[in-house]
């Protein structure tokens, strides 16, 4: 954990993770990037769109017995709505993401190892085809293959959707620069017992994440955001 002063308003800014390179000041909403010793203010983040998320920065919970806390969030929009990507830091130092979409929760971790070359080629081809416009006329799902499969880190997962994703805003600290308007192609993957995979393509940069869907009760979250009427 490292403490800084916001270069804009002087309020204290805490970086919980050494991986975090980007943050939004909770008081003045300045966006800052972290250099070796100091922070540089590069802009201001607009207020995030409202939601009924029970999560907030500072919420902690458990994943597979390890306590984690949420330190940052990106709000991502796509053509049919939006979802939250919470950046989480585990007590064991592990960094992951808690995706919150349509009432589902999925925890995932970036795959450190390089992707299999054949898999990477398939992803690039698929994304190129999507960008070229086949995303508008998705293949009829009734066809025999009902979607294709991708193997990530030895797990064979089904491709369930591919979509354009735009960052609508962010808060807290994040391991990536997450300004409003950051655009990626996002591929969601699903396994037979709730395994969750995600491939995020930013320009030519491919990042793959692997984890699983988790029930709300299993997360044992604390320090939740108050929700009126609930």
């Amino acid at each position, binding site marked *: 954990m490292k403490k800084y002063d916001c270069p*804009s*308003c002087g*309020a204290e800014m805490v970086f919980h993770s050494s991986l975090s390179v980007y943050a939004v000041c*909770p*008081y*003045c*909403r*300045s*966006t800052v*990037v972290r250099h070796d010793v100091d922070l540089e203010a*590069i*802009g*201001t983040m*607009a207020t*995030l*769109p*409202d*939601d*009924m*998320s*029970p999560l*907030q*920065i*500072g919420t902690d919970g458990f994943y597979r017995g390890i306590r984690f806390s949420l330190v940052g*969030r990106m709000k991502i*929009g796509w053509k*049919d*709505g*939006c979802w939250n990507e919470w950046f989480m830091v585990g007590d064991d130092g592990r960094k992951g993401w808690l995706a919150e979409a*349509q*009432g*589902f929760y*999925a925890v995932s971790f970036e795959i450190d190892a390089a992707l299999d070359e054949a898999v990477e080629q398939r992803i690039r081809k698929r994304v190129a085809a999507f960008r070229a416009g086949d995303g508008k006329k*998705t293949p009829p*799902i*009734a066809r025999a293959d*009902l*979607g294709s499969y991708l193997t990530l880190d030895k797990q064979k*997962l089904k491709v*369930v*959707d591919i979509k354009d994703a735009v960052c609508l805003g962010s*808060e807290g600290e994040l391991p990536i*620069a997450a*300004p*409003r*308007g950051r655009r990626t192609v996002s591929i969601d993957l*699903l*396994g*037979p*017992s*709730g395994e*969750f995979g995600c491939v995020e393509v930013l320009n030519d940069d491919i990042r793959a994440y692997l984890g699983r*869907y988790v029930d*709300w009760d299993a997360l044992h979250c604390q320090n939740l*955001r*108050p*929700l*009126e*009427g*609930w």
Partner: protein
Amino acid sequence: MVTDEIVYPLHEPDPIPPTHHKGRAKSFKCPACGGIVTIRAVGHSINAVCSHCSSVVDVANDNYRIVEKAHKLTRHTLLEIGTKGVLFGVTWEVVGYVEKDDGSAAYRWDEYLLYNPYHGFRFLMQARGHWNFFEVIKRDVSGVVLENDVRLDERPYTIFYRGEAVVQYVKGEFYWKVKKGDRARVVDYIAPPYMLSAEISDDELTLAQGVYLQPSEVKEAFKLTAAMPYPVGVAANQPSRFRERISGIWSIALLGLLAATLIQAATSITADNAHVYSTQSRIYAENSSPDLAADGCGETGSGLPDCDKAAGYGRNKMFSSPSFVLPKGSNVFIESYSPVQNDWVELNLSLVNEQTNTAYSLSHGIEYYFGYDADGYWSEGNQRVDSFISAVPSGTYRLLVEADSGAFQKSGAIDFALNVTRDVPAWGNYWITLLLLFVYPIYAGIRHMSFENKRWSESDYAPALYRTS
């Protein structure tokens, strides 16, 4: 590094960090009618139907674009938008309602969208008075849609329905784009009380797992006072009351069978099965005049015949056995035989205790007829009859026989034989026990079959057992 970000002038620090604002429902002004519309699942809902004019509004952002304009009053539904209820220990708020049919209007159903900000969304379905609670599942279920048999959570599901679902009416808010006339393919699998439902729209396959709810559970959960729609027929995944019990019932019956058989075997083995008395004798008609001397029998003081040494003796259609002893309380088995041919004999038997004069009476009607007719040889009746007297106390007994017979008119006498045994293994109780043991299991089995028959009568995929026509 960042080029597309708008830089605002710096402002004073906000005393509360933005994330610490409470989450709350929000409202907007309907762009079509100006009415105030509430959104409950803020951040999830992308379409909302105006509660005043029924226009569909895009609520994914604050632009509130009209998707479909309408000027209709909202329809009343059993569960109203905003109603809360507790199901499976979680409070759910009704946020949306969709009426769908199968495209032919022959089969229609209600889908209520339930929301809890922690647990997400569920669906409460009502069709023909039957209720189901559905949860969308994030699982890649092997073979789903394509195969007729799939597995989920080690549970085998079998195909029940393939068809279409067409949206006929919407109200409330939704985390997907809704519109009247939207069509989707539907594939339903069942493993009562569970159901696995696949919905295939343009670009998405959604799997939902449902569980059957009793109407009373829904009524109670949402504190409904209005009458619930009456359940018609058997729902696809309605659990059979009998199926749940049937294995238990049969286990009990089989245990009973085992116990009864063991008891029967034990009593059969330990039974004395002892011979007491037997005779072959003759009884004469009342008016015939038997030569007593010729039969070698004399009269006793009792006035009753007391003779079975000779081949036969009788008078006044009466016969009496000598005394015999039943050494302990037991059943007594009496067999009678008479070689009647196209005739009948009725033997009225009394087993009389000589000490107490207690009499056990029974009647053996022996009749045997035979002959030839157009169909050939026929026969009817039997020359043998037997019966039990149960629980006869120990003592000295004799057997009195009074006879009547058609033969008395013809030949004036009948021949008969008696055989008395005691402590005979009795099978009657055993068979009755068995019958009683299996009456309910068989009844339950039949009821179960008939229930399954009703269930499958609604499906094109009925197993051979329940297939009609």
